[in-house]
Protein backbone atom coordinates (compact mmCIF):
# COMPACT_ATOMS: atom_id res chain seq x y z
CA UNK A 1 0.00 0.00 0.00
CA UNK A 2 1.49 3.28 -1.04
CA UNK A 3 2.00 6.06 1.45
CA UNK A 4 -0.58 8.33 -0.12
CA UNK A 5 -3.19 5.56 -0.15
CA UNK A 6 -2.67 4.92 3.54
CA UNK A 7 -2.96 8.57 4.52
CA UNK A 8 -5.95 9.28 2.32
CA UNK A 9 -7.91 6.27 3.58
CA UNK A 10 -7.03 7.27 7.14
CA UNK A 11 -8.29 10.78 6.51
CA UNK A 12 -11.58 9.48 5.07
CA UNK A 13 -11.93 7.26 8.16
CA UNK A 14 -11.26 10.23 10.46
CA UNK A 15 -13.81 12.32 8.64
CA UNK A 16 -16.48 9.65 8.92
CA UNK A 17 -15.75 9.01 12.60
CA UNK A 18 -16.02 12.73 13.25
CA UNK A 19 -19.24 13.01 11.26
CA UNK A 20 -20.80 10.14 13.12
CA UNK A 21 -19.76 11.61 16.45
CA UNK A 22 -21.11 15.02 15.52
CA UNK A 23 -24.55 13.62 14.78
CA UNK A 24 -24.83 10.78 17.25
CA UNK A 25 -23.46 12.22 20.49
CA UNK A 26 -25.80 14.21 22.68
CA UNK A 27 -23.26 16.01 24.83
CA UNK A 28 -22.31 19.38 23.40
CA UNK A 29 -18.60 19.04 24.17
CA UNK A 30 -18.45 15.72 22.36
CA UNK A 31 -20.02 17.31 19.32
CA UNK A 32 -17.38 20.03 19.36
CA UNK A 33 -14.57 17.50 19.66
CA UNK A 34 -16.10 15.43 16.83
CA UNK A 35 -16.12 18.53 14.64
CA UNK A 36 -12.42 18.97 15.32
CA UNK A 37 -11.79 15.33 14.40
CA UNK A 38 -13.54 15.94 11.07
CA UNK A 39 -11.33 18.97 10.50
CA UNK A 40 -8.23 16.90 11.28
CA UNK A 41 -9.26 14.37 8.66
CA UNK A 42 -9.58 17.05 6.01
CA UNK A 43 -6.22 18.57 6.92
CA UNK A 44 -4.56 15.16 6.74
CA UNK A 45 -5.93 14.64 3.25
CA UNK A 46 -4.75 18.05 2.07
CA UNK A 47 -1.26 17.57 3.45
CA UNK A 48 -0.91 14.09 1.99
CA UNK A 49 -2.05 15.38 -1.39
CA UNK A 50 0.69 18.00 -1.15
CA UNK A 51 3.30 15.31 -0.65
CA UNK A 52 2.13 12.96 -3.36
CA UNK A 53 5.01 13.55 -5.71
CA UNK A 54 8.08 12.45 -3.77
CA UNK A 55 10.57 13.84 -6.26
CA UNK A 56 9.76 17.49 -5.78
CA UNK A 57 9.41 19.86 -2.89
CA UNK A 58 5.97 19.57 -1.30
CA UNK A 59 3.21 21.53 -2.98
CA UNK A 60 2.82 24.79 -1.07
CA UNK A 61 -0.77 25.59 -2.05
CA UNK A 62 -2.47 22.81 0.00
CA UNK A 63 -0.15 23.75 2.88
CA UNK A 64 -1.50 27.29 2.82
CA UNK A 65 -5.05 25.95 2.63
CA UNK A 66 -4.45 23.83 5.73
CA UNK A 67 -3.12 26.86 7.61
CA UNK A 68 -6.25 28.76 6.69
CA UNK A 69 -8.39 25.78 7.65
CA UNK A 70 -6.79 25.44 11.06
CA UNK A 71 -7.52 29.07 11.88
CA UNK A 72 -11.13 28.69 10.75
CA UNK A 73 -11.51 25.52 12.83
CA UNK A 74 -10.14 27.34 15.88
CA UNK A 75 -12.58 30.21 15.37
CA UNK A 76 -15.49 27.81 15.06
CA UNK A 77 -14.43 25.87 18.15
CA UNK A 78 -14.05 29.07 20.17
CA UNK A 79 -17.51 30.31 19.27
CA UNK A 80 -19.04 26.86 19.81
CA UNK A 81 -17.48 26.65 23.27
CA UNK A 82 -18.72 30.13 24.18
CA UNK A 83 -22.21 29.12 23.05
CA UNK A 84 -22.02 25.89 25.04
CA UNK A 85 -21.04 27.77 28.19
CA UNK A 86 -23.89 30.20 27.68
CA UNK A 87 -26.34 27.33 27.14
CA UNK A 88 -25.13 25.72 30.34
CA UNK A 89 -25.49 29.00 32.19
CA UNK A 90 -29.00 29.61 30.93
CA UNK A 91 -30.47 26.12 31.11
CA UNK A 92 -28.12 24.16 33.33
CA UNK A 93 -27.81 21.36 30.79
CA UNK A 94 -25.00 20.42 28.46
CA UNK A 95 -26.69 17.78 26.36
CA UNK A 96 -29.29 17.86 23.67
CA UNK A 97 -31.95 15.50 24.94
CA UNK A 98 -34.30 13.49 22.82
CA UNK A 99 -37.92 14.45 23.10
CA UNK A 100 -39.87 11.92 25.12
CA UNK A 101 -42.96 12.09 22.98
CA UNK A 102 -44.00 13.72 19.76
CA UNK A 103 -46.43 16.22 21.28
CA UNK A 104 -49.39 17.62 19.46
CA UNK A 105 -47.47 19.89 17.09
CA UNK A 106 -46.98 17.02 14.66
Amino acid at each position, binding site marked *: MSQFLLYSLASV*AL*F*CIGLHGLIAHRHLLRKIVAMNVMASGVFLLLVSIARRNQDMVAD*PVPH*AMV*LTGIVVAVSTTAFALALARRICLETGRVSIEEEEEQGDTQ
Partner: protein
Amino acid sequence: MSRLLTAPMTFAIGVILTVAVLDLPEIPAGLTPTVLASMEMSGVGHPVTGVLLNFRGYDTWLEVGVLLLAMQAVLLLQRSYDLSLLPSDPPANPVLSWFTHLLVPAMVLVAGYLLWMGTKAPGGAFQAGAILGAAGVLLRLAGYRSVAVLRGVLMRALLLMGFGLFLVVAVGVMAFGMQFFQYPGRPAGEIIFALEIAISVATGLTLAALFVGGRPARRHADGERRGSH
Protein backbone atom coordinates in the same frame (compact mmCIF):
# COMPACT_ATOMS: atom_id res chain seq x y z
CA MET B 1 -35.75 6.39 14.54
CA SER B 2 -33.38 8.90 13.04
CA ARG B 3 -30.64 7.58 15.32
CA LEU B 4 -30.64 4.32 13.38
CA LEU B 5 -29.96 6.16 10.15
CA THR B 6 -26.75 7.75 11.38
CA ALA B 7 -24.41 4.80 10.97
CA PRO B 8 -25.55 3.70 7.49
CA MET B 9 -25.50 7.28 6.25
CA THR B 10 -22.01 7.85 7.57
CA PHE B 11 -20.88 4.60 6.03
CA ALA B 12 -22.37 5.61 2.67
CA ILE B 13 -20.56 8.96 2.84
CA GLY B 14 -17.36 7.10 3.68
CA VAL B 15 -17.74 4.86 0.65
CA ILE B 16 -18.32 7.84 -1.62
CA LEU B 17 -15.27 9.63 -0.24
CA THR B 18 -13.11 6.53 -0.62
CA VAL B 19 -14.10 6.19 -4.25
CA ALA B 20 -13.33 9.87 -4.77
CA VAL B 21 -9.93 9.58 -3.12
CA LEU B 22 -8.97 6.44 -5.01
CA ASP B 23 -10.02 8.14 -8.21
CA LEU B 24 -7.49 10.96 -7.93
CA PRO B 25 -5.25 11.24 -11.00
CA GLU B 26 -1.82 9.67 -10.88
CA ILE B 27 1.10 11.69 -9.48
CA PRO B 28 0.89 15.04 -11.14
CA ALA B 29 3.29 17.82 -10.36
CA GLY B 30 0.60 19.89 -8.75
CA LEU B 31 1.14 23.61 -8.43
CA THR B 32 4.74 23.32 -7.19
CA PRO B 33 6.49 24.33 -10.43
CA THR B 34 4.14 27.27 -10.96
CA VAL B 35 4.73 28.59 -7.46
CA LEU B 36 8.49 28.03 -7.50
CA ALA B 37 8.80 29.81 -10.82
CA SER B 38 7.04 32.89 -9.45
CA MET B 39 8.89 33.11 -6.14
CA GLU B 40 10.99 36.14 -7.11
CA MET B 41 7.83 38.04 -7.85
CA SER B 42 6.41 37.31 -4.44
CA GLY B 43 8.97 39.14 -2.34
CA VAL B 44 9.54 36.40 0.24
CA GLY B 45 11.88 33.45 0.39
CA HIS B 46 9.58 30.66 1.52
CA PRO B 47 6.98 29.21 -0.89
CA VAL B 48 4.26 28.64 1.70
CA THR B 49 4.55 32.21 3.00
CA GLY B 50 4.50 33.47 -0.58
CA VAL B 51 1.35 31.51 -1.35
CA LEU B 52 -0.31 32.50 1.92
CA LEU B 53 0.37 36.21 1.83
CA ASN B 54 0.84 37.03 -1.82
CA PHE B 55 -0.60 34.57 -4.32
CA ARG B 56 -3.57 33.56 -2.15
CA GLY B 57 -3.66 36.72 -0.08
CA TYR B 58 -7.39 36.99 -0.66
CA ASP B 59 -7.98 33.72 1.22
CA THR B 60 -5.81 34.91 4.09
CA TRP B 61 -7.73 38.16 4.26
CA LEU B 62 -11.03 36.32 4.47
CA GLU B 63 -9.58 33.99 7.10
CA VAL B 64 -8.73 36.98 9.29
CA GLY B 65 -12.31 38.06 8.65
CA VAL B 66 -13.59 34.72 9.95
CA LEU B 67 -11.58 35.18 13.14
CA LEU B 68 -13.09 38.61 13.50
CA LEU B 69 -16.59 37.21 12.99
CA ALA B 70 -16.04 34.63 15.73
CA MET B 71 -14.81 37.41 18.02
CA GLN B 72 -17.85 39.50 17.21
CA ALA B 73 -20.15 36.57 17.94
CA VAL B 74 -18.48 35.86 21.30
CA LEU B 75 -18.66 39.54 22.26
CA LEU B 76 -22.30 39.49 21.20
CA LEU B 77 -22.92 36.76 23.77
CA GLN B 78 -21.37 39.05 26.37
CA ARG B 79 -23.24 42.07 25.03
CA SER B 80 -20.31 44.39 25.51
CA TYR B 81 -16.84 45.14 24.21
CA ASP B 82 -15.63 45.54 27.75
CA LEU B 83 -14.10 42.26 28.84
CA SER B 84 -13.06 43.63 32.23
CA LEU B 85 -16.53 42.98 33.61
CA LEU B 86 -16.11 39.25 33.35
CA PRO B 87 -15.14 37.10 36.33
CA SER B 88 -11.48 36.18 36.44
CA ASP B 89 -9.58 33.44 38.17
CA PRO B 90 -8.18 34.11 41.64
CA PRO B 91 -4.43 34.84 41.81
CA ALA B 92 -2.56 31.64 41.15
CA ASN B 93 -0.34 29.62 43.41
CA PRO B 94 3.30 30.81 43.58
CA VAL B 95 4.67 28.15 41.24
CA LEU B 96 2.30 29.11 38.41
CA SER B 97 2.93 32.81 39.00
CA TRP B 98 6.69 32.39 38.88
CA PHE B 99 6.49 30.19 35.83
CA THR B 100 4.25 32.69 34.06
CA HIS B 101 6.70 35.50 34.83
CA LEU B 102 9.38 33.33 33.27
CA LEU B 103 7.47 32.08 30.28
CA VAL B 104 5.44 34.99 28.90
CA PRO B 105 8.42 37.19 27.90
CA ALA B 106 10.01 34.15 26.30
CA MET B 107 6.77 33.50 24.40
CA VAL B 108 6.72 37.05 23.07
CA LEU B 109 10.32 36.63 21.95
CA VAL B 110 9.60 33.31 20.24
CA ALA B 111 6.60 34.86 18.50
CA GLY B 112 8.78 37.66 17.15
CA TYR B 113 11.38 35.16 16.02
CA LEU B 114 8.80 33.02 14.21
CA LEU B 115 7.38 36.14 12.56
CA TRP B 116 10.83 37.11 11.29
CA MET B 117 11.73 33.60 10.15
CA GLY B 118 8.53 33.35 8.13
CA THR B 119 10.17 35.07 5.21
CA LYS B 120 12.65 32.26 4.62
CA ALA B 121 11.56 29.23 6.67
CA PRO B 122 8.35 27.74 8.09
CA GLY B 123 6.87 30.38 10.32
CA GLY B 124 5.08 33.61 9.70
CA ALA B 125 2.13 35.56 10.91
CA PHE B 126 -0.31 32.91 12.10
CA GLN B 127 2.26 30.87 13.95
CA ALA B 128 3.41 33.99 15.80
CA GLY B 129 -0.21 34.95 16.45
CA ALA B 130 -0.94 31.53 17.92
CA ILE B 131 1.94 31.86 20.40
CA LEU B 132 0.87 35.38 21.37
CA GLY B 133 -2.65 34.08 21.91
CA ALA B 134 -1.30 31.28 24.09
CA ALA B 135 0.63 33.88 26.13
CA GLY B 136 -2.59 35.81 26.68
CA VAL B 137 -4.42 32.65 27.74
CA LEU B 138 -1.60 31.70 30.13
CA LEU B 139 -1.74 35.14 31.75
CA ARG B 140 -5.48 34.76 32.24
CA LEU B 141 -5.13 31.30 33.76
CA ALA B 142 -2.52 32.63 36.17
CA GLY B 143 -4.95 35.18 37.53
CA TYR B 144 -3.90 38.33 35.69
CA ARG B 145 -6.40 40.37 33.79
CA SER B 146 -4.57 39.73 30.53
CA VAL B 147 -6.48 40.96 27.50
CA ALA B 148 -9.22 42.49 29.62
CA VAL B 149 -7.08 45.54 30.31
CA LEU B 150 -7.92 46.73 26.82
CA ARG B 151 -11.31 48.27 26.42
CA GLY B 152 -13.39 50.44 24.16
CA VAL B 153 -11.83 52.01 21.13
CA LEU B 154 -8.35 50.56 21.66
CA MET B 155 -9.71 47.01 21.77
CA ARG B 156 -11.74 47.47 18.60
CA ALA B 157 -8.85 49.13 16.81
CA LEU B 158 -6.42 46.34 17.64
CA LEU B 159 -8.93 43.65 16.68
CA LEU B 160 -9.59 45.32 13.34
CA MET B 161 -5.93 45.94 12.60
CA GLY B 162 -5.26 42.77 10.62
CA PHE B 163 -8.39 42.85 8.50
CA GLY B 164 -8.21 46.62 8.08
CA LEU B 165 -4.60 46.77 6.89
CA PHE B 166 -5.32 44.07 4.33
CA LEU B 167 -8.30 46.06 3.09
CA VAL B 168 -6.28 49.28 2.95
CA VAL B 169 -3.55 47.57 0.90
CA ALA B 170 -5.99 45.77 -1.38
CA VAL B 171 -8.01 48.88 -2.19
CA GLY B 172 -5.11 51.33 -1.96
CA VAL B 173 -3.24 49.81 -4.87
CA MET B 174 -6.24 50.57 -7.03
CA ALA B 175 -5.52 54.25 -6.53
CA PHE B 176 -2.20 53.69 -8.31
CA GLY B 177 -3.82 52.13 -11.32
CA MET B 178 -3.36 48.48 -10.38
CA GLN B 179 -6.03 45.89 -9.88
CA PHE B 180 -7.67 44.93 -6.62
CA PHE B 181 -5.16 43.15 -4.37
CA GLN B 182 -2.29 43.39 -6.82
CA TYR B 183 0.90 44.05 -4.88
CA PRO B 184 3.35 46.45 -6.55
CA GLY B 185 6.49 44.75 -7.78
CA ARG B 186 9.44 45.87 -5.67
CA PRO B 187 7.95 46.80 -2.27
CA ALA B 188 6.06 43.50 -2.17
CA GLY B 189 8.35 42.08 0.52
CA GLU B 190 7.95 45.11 2.79
CA ILE B 191 4.21 45.21 2.30
CA ILE B 192 3.99 41.53 3.17
CA PHE B 193 6.05 42.02 6.33
CA ALA B 194 3.90 44.92 7.49
CA LEU B 195 0.80 42.80 6.87
CA GLU B 196 2.37 39.94 8.82
CA ILE B 197 3.03 42.13 11.85
CA ALA B 198 -0.54 43.41 11.82
CA ILE B 199 -1.97 39.91 11.38
CA SER B 200 0.09 38.36 14.15
CA VAL B 201 -0.78 41.02 16.74
CA ALA B 202 -4.46 41.01 15.77
CA THR B 203 -4.64 37.20 15.70
CA GLY B 204 -2.92 36.86 19.08
CA LEU B 205 -5.26 39.40 20.62
CA THR B 206 -8.31 37.76 19.05
CA LEU B 207 -7.36 34.28 20.24
CA ALA B 208 -6.74 35.47 23.79
CA ALA B 209 -9.93 37.55 23.78
CA LEU B 210 -11.92 34.54 22.50
CA PHE B 211 -10.74 32.64 25.56
CA VAL B 212 -11.39 35.49 27.99
CA GLY B 213 -14.74 36.37 26.46
CA GLY B 214 -15.94 32.80 26.30
CA ARG B 215 -16.67 32.61 29.98
CA PRO B 216 -20.11 34.06 30.71
CA ALA B 217 -20.65 36.53 33.52
CA ARG B 218 -22.08 35.12 36.68
CA ARG B 219 -25.74 35.53 37.39
CA HIS B 220 -27.11 36.99 40.57
CA ALA B 221 -29.73 35.05 42.53
CA ASP B 222 -32.57 37.15 41.17
CA GLY B 223 -31.41 36.68 37.60
CA GLU B 224 -29.62 40.01 37.24
CA ARG B 225 -26.27 40.00 35.57
CA ARG B 226 -23.14 41.06 37.35
CA GLY B 227 -19.42 40.63 36.95
CA SER B 228 -16.85 39.89 39.54
CA HIS B 229 -16.09 42.44 42.22
